[in-house]
């Protein structure tokens, strides 16, 4: 899913992110699609969709390469190693469904359990995974931390400081292909999907264009996060 640009610069620039302010809170959009809240030492990722290949196959579809759980967890654990967060917050649709959560390959399930046990971990429940799993951590519909409220699906009537996922936003400039993107305005932030097997919804789509304020920014993920006026 990541662009295959030179990996050397990749590692160097992953350190840097794009800083912005939401409801008076300083946040950093990382090129990997995760959100870093330095003051709280909180790392937030959205829409992991773990177990997607299992669910696909179970429901009579083709057998997709069963490596997406491994890949998503590898990328997440690399971020955790790099930032040492006190809290990890998953913004919902962490599992493709609750049965998929039970069916993760054993070694991947162990890794996830260890990751969760090592720090404070918050699962927001999404439309794909409405319930608790056996991986530990705390589960809830939404949670407010300081001035920010984290929920899976953005609410039209949200007060400033809403952080959500669900839409898998992506955007493109006139050159280059579309990339997963953060969307941010004065009221809300929508995170791109972090999971390896996740598609995207263009920011031009009415569902997103209608939700975001006219001055909204899109921050394209990639070797270096790139901010631009949200394409409409």
């Amino acid at each position, binding site marked *: *899913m990541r662009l295959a640009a030179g990996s050397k610069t990749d590692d160097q620039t992953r350190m840097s992110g794009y800083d912005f302010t939401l409801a008076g809170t300083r946040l950093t959009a990382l090129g990997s699609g995760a959100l870093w809240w330095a003051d709280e030492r909180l790392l937030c990722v959205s829409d992991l969709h773990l177990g997607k290949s299992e669910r696909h196959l179970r429901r009579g579809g083709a057998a997709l390469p069963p*490596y997406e759980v491994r890949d998503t967890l590898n990328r997440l654990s690399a971020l955790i190693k790099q930032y040492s967060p006190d809290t990890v917050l998953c913004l919902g649709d962490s599992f493709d469904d609750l049965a998929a959560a039970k069916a993760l390959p054993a070694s991947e399930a162990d890794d996830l359990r260890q990751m969760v046990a090592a720090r404070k971990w918050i699962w927001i429940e999404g439309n794909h995974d409405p319930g608790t799993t056996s991986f530990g951590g705390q589960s809830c519909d939404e949670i407010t931390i300081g001035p920010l409220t984290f929920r899976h699906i953005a609410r039209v009537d949200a007060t400033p400081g809403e952080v959500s996922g669900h839409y898998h936003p992506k955007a493109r400039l*006139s050159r280059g292909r579309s990339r997963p993107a953060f969307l941010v305005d004065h009221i809300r932030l929508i995170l791109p999907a972090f999971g390896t097997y996740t598609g995207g919804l263009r920011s031009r789509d009415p569902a997103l264009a209608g939700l975001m304020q006219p001055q909204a*920014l899109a921050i394209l993920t990639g070797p270096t996060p790139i901010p631009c006026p949200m394409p409409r």
Partner: protein
Amino acid sequence: MAGFLPTLAELAADDHKGLHTLYVSPLKALAADIKRNLTGPVAEMGLPIRIDDRTGDTPQSRRKRQRTDPPHILLTTPESLALMVSYEDAARTFQGLKRIVIDEIHALAESKRGDQLMLALSRLQSLCPDLRRVGLSATVDDPEQIARYLARYPDPCHIVQADPGPAPDIAMLQTEEAPPWAGGGAAYSIPAVLDQIRAHQTTLIFHNTRAQAEIFFHNLWLANEEGLPIAIHHGSLDREQRERVEAAMVANELRAVVCTGSLDLGIDWGNVDLVIQIGAPKNVKRLVQRIGRANHRYNAPSKALLVPANRFEVVECQAALEAVKQGRLDGDPRPPGPRDVLCQHILIRACSGPFDADTLFAEVTSVGAYSHLSRAAFDACLDFCATGGYALRAYDQWQRLLQRPDGLWQLRDPRSAARIRMNIGTIQDADLLKVRMKRSRGGKPLGEVEEAFAATLTPGDTFLIGGQIVRYESLREMTVEVSRDRGRKPKIAVFSGTKFATSTQLSQGILDLLAQDAWPNLPAHTADWLTLQRKVSELPRAGQMLIETFPHQGREHACLYGFAGRNAQQTLGLLVTKRMEELGLDPLGFVATDYATLIWGLSELTDPAPLLDGNALRDGLERWLAGNAVMKRAFRASATIAGLIERNTPGSRKSGRQATFSSDILYDTLRKYDPDHLLLDITRDEALSGLVDFARIEEMIERIRGRVSLRRLGRISPLAAPLLLEMGKVPVQGAGAEKLVQQEAAELMRASGLETLAQ
């Protein structure tokens, strides 16, 4: 008609129950047309013979009836036949089948549709052991090869040669104005083409791409002051619109039809007495096929005119003319049967009921193209269909195919049969979106555009479709909504069409022509142009590679004349730019045509020899196969055919929401975690023979043997100029490109004033 005489004789002689003859053609329209032509005489003779056709357009109710109570003669396409074979009651449907007639077999043999058809035939042959096979074609370069392709391996096949008739009357169109230096529109020829339309009953005007057909039709219409009835016909147009054109053709109401490959085959239009080919024909066989569309009357020569779109194409047209006159058709040896099609066939076989692997293997290897398939390769395909064939056996409880205690294989979940049937077929259309006029309740359908093209549109952009200029309004429920636009010039050129590579034989013919001391056989304007090229630079020769470098519009350019065909030149571009990137030469992109690759970037190329070393290219190929777009495209095609990616799923496309993730992600994941997977192996095979066409790079390396002629020029050369106007420029996604994206974003932030707000 001749192909049906034995059928009619047998059916007239005895009281045959059920299906007797299957007729398969590559085109739906052809099936409908044959039905018309056959039903008339049969009714006149009072024969009690039922004839019906079945294609993707046949309504559900009629399809059902055809399965339970089949007609005597069924006219169909490879995809519809594969679907019929996938039903549990296939044995009953095809009971008593005696003959199968495959029309235009050379066209099917060139694509995976033919491989799918032959696999379906192997199944039919098991169901109906005394089935006889007949193949028909008017343009076969190597009859023995097609015979082996058609017959059950290793049975012999009888070849019947018909009288070829008189030689065609074929020439280049004489125009007052010379063709332009560059471009593909051939707009200069409009007045001369109009004169020809006036002088003939009905003219077919062939184009190589839909985009070119659209632009040409638009220009022709603007110049058509006396309002001659002229229509356009191509595969992206709405079906209703195509059918209207076809009906008008049959009724002799049209003086000309601008068309693409959609009219290459089949249907005998009444009064076509002239064929015009716009743009170089790329392939002599296809040219001969198109010429044959004029005057199907026996003993009358077909009349055809070639219209080169630019001066280089004058040379190519002349080489093609000489090849036609000498009867030199181009053909390449057929590769072995593709394994992605085999995977689909295994799934289709599973849909029709439990099967035994040994029996299926025997059936498959009775197909000529698969006769040398190893058991191990077959088993790998079966394993892929059953489990996905991954090194990590993660979800084996959900296998797609299960082996039962009695050894037979069957679908685990009967629901998957419906999903598999929805995805039968090997035609790889890019994802297409319907285009409609914007009205309150669904306006008039105009045709389809590629999703990738639609994604680049912003409201207000204008483009051509069905010969009219429309304005992009919005994308709603996966439909592109447009309004009419009064402008005379579309802002965006249109969507891309299929691109054919100039054949090896034709490329050699062009090099032979360029090697002449003078060109009395070419029009003066082109001969002068080549003379100029010889003066300011030199002409490419077969025994060496000419490379020109020059600055142009602030960028350094290098033009490599390899004459290896579009696909191989594209691969050469990818390999060479990758090497240049490693050397820090900052390539930004390239474009390939059939004869050259033009690369631009920030630094001058001064030492090209190392870039063209055979071993370096071969080494580079393996490393490069990793992450490039061509491989991803090949992977997408093979993964779709093999059943890993579903084009159609129950309930899909209703909302564009969270559309399925791209096949690129699957490709990258497999490369990373399962590099020996079957599909990557298939992709490599496919890309090397098709899109990558490395064989022709090898041929080129062999031809030039390291001999490079490097010319440093002050400006662009006469021969290089056409490349700048080529569509399909490939950006190099390197450090340079990333910098440019950042520059653009920064510019937008500054311009919009958001920069200050954001921090």
